């Protein structure tokens, strides 16, 4: 396994509040789970990795290049895509156009952006493949905002995939899903792993995370309190305390 992403000693302060305190995480070619109680700093870490926030100190290395000074769109173009905890589909575009927006990732910075139409046979074909892969083909022409939440979460994954990432960050992909939908989602994520993508998942649904992830990192109050296999983490005294109290 090679190191895909390394977050080195990340600290993030908001005013007086320390959201992250010297957190170091590495992701190999794997499905890595990031769990922890509310306010533990998980989403903050995601926001730092994808460039929405700058770390107060520390570094983020993606495939041997430091990315923590880059801006979000550059980071996406270099191969990291994410989904959002509160879904942000392009709600008044169709599902297909949402995916096309992701496919444009490597065009937006080139002059082709002015000259080329976005909806042509050469672009629609790969977009439809992604829709088929995520089982959204049926909804291609529906406005994204009209989809129920389970499909919106899938659409976010589809849109992220369209940017051709090597690292995929999923922020609570199972939130609000029924257990059937969550199972489907797990199958999808495993398929992505089989394609060679590295995946980091923030998850509140513990059953889902424990079942899906190969390795789990537990954050609490801005620090890593445990990491290991799901079985190790589940029996870890500190983790139980962090969740249930003493």
């Amino acid at each position, binding site marked *: 396994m090679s190191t895909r992403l390394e977050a080195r000693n990340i600290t993030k302060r908001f005013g007086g509040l320390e959201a992250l305190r010297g957190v170091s995480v590495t992701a190999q070619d794997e499905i890595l789970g990031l769990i922890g*109680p*509310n*306010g533990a700093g998980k989403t903050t870490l995601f926001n730092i990795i994808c460039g929405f926030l700058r770390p107060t100190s520390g570094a983020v290395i993606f495939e041997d290049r430091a990315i923590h000074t880059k801006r979000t769109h550059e980071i996406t173009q270099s191969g990291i895509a994410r989904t959002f905890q509160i879904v942000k589909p392009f709600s008044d575009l169709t599902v297909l156009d949402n995916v096309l927006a992701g496919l444009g990732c490597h065009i937006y910075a080139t002059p082709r952006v002015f000259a080329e139409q976005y909806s042509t046979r050469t672009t629609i074909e790969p977009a439809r493949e992604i829709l088929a892969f995520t089982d959204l083909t049926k909804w291609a022409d529906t406005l994204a905002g009209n*989809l*129920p*939440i389970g499909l*919106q979460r899938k659409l976010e994954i589809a849109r992220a995939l369209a940017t051709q990432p090597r690292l995929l960050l999923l922020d*609570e992909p199972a*939130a*609000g899903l029924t*257990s059937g939908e969550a199972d489907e989602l797990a199958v999808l994520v495993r398929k992505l792993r089989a394609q060679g993508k590295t995946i980091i998942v923030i998850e*509140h*649904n*513990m*059953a*889902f*995370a*424990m*079942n899906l992830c190969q390795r789990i990192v537990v954050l609490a*109050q801005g620090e890593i309190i445990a990491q290991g296999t799901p079985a190790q983490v*589940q029996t870890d005294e500190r*983790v*139980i305390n962090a*969740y*249930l*109290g*003493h």
Partner: protein
Amino acid sequence: MLQVENLDVHYGHIQALRDVSFAVNDNEGVAVLGANGAGKSTLIKTLIGWNTPSRGRILFDGKDITRLPIWDRAALGLAVVPESGRVFRDLTVTQNLELGAYTEKHRATIQQRAREMFDLFPVLNERKHQIAKTLSGGEQQMLAIARALMTRPKLLLIDEVSMGLMPILVKRVFEVIGQLRASGVTILLVEQNAYEALQVVERGYVLENGKIVLNDTASELTQNPRVKAAYLGG
């Protein structure tokens, strides 16, 4: 005291609560437990009136308050200690307390109650002219509790009181809640910190994915392995 019947709550397409029914009796402490995202805070917000349920009824003292404006609920005797305190940050400690008793019109009564709060929380007395945002996290939490008590509420709703507090402060806050229970305040507590919460209440419910999956006395719940499973997905 409080009776909740078949409550459904949606955020857009997301259903946060599914068919939730439960009750809190007079002079009783009840905890609602569950992992992140189980719907605990949504429940509190719906009881206060910050969320509107898509289905179901909320009865308080036998009166249907499901569609009552938020401020009228406060007048009926429902008070809340919201998540992370939410004190009025730019006002003084005293002003925060006065606002707690906003529904009370007599100045003398308000001052009398503020004095009681200062007796109960001496640390607030020391800082009564300070602006609330200069207080520490624990002190702000105390202020939020004191503010809620200013109305002499019939029912006190407490949302995630331990969140973001250092362990030592969590202990102190739960001591205070324990004292309040001992003095006969009816409390509905929503909490992630299950074991601490179960020590200060008589009964508990466990929420999972917006549904109530367990309902038992506090001592039984403490023993029940399913509580742990609800958090850690065992």
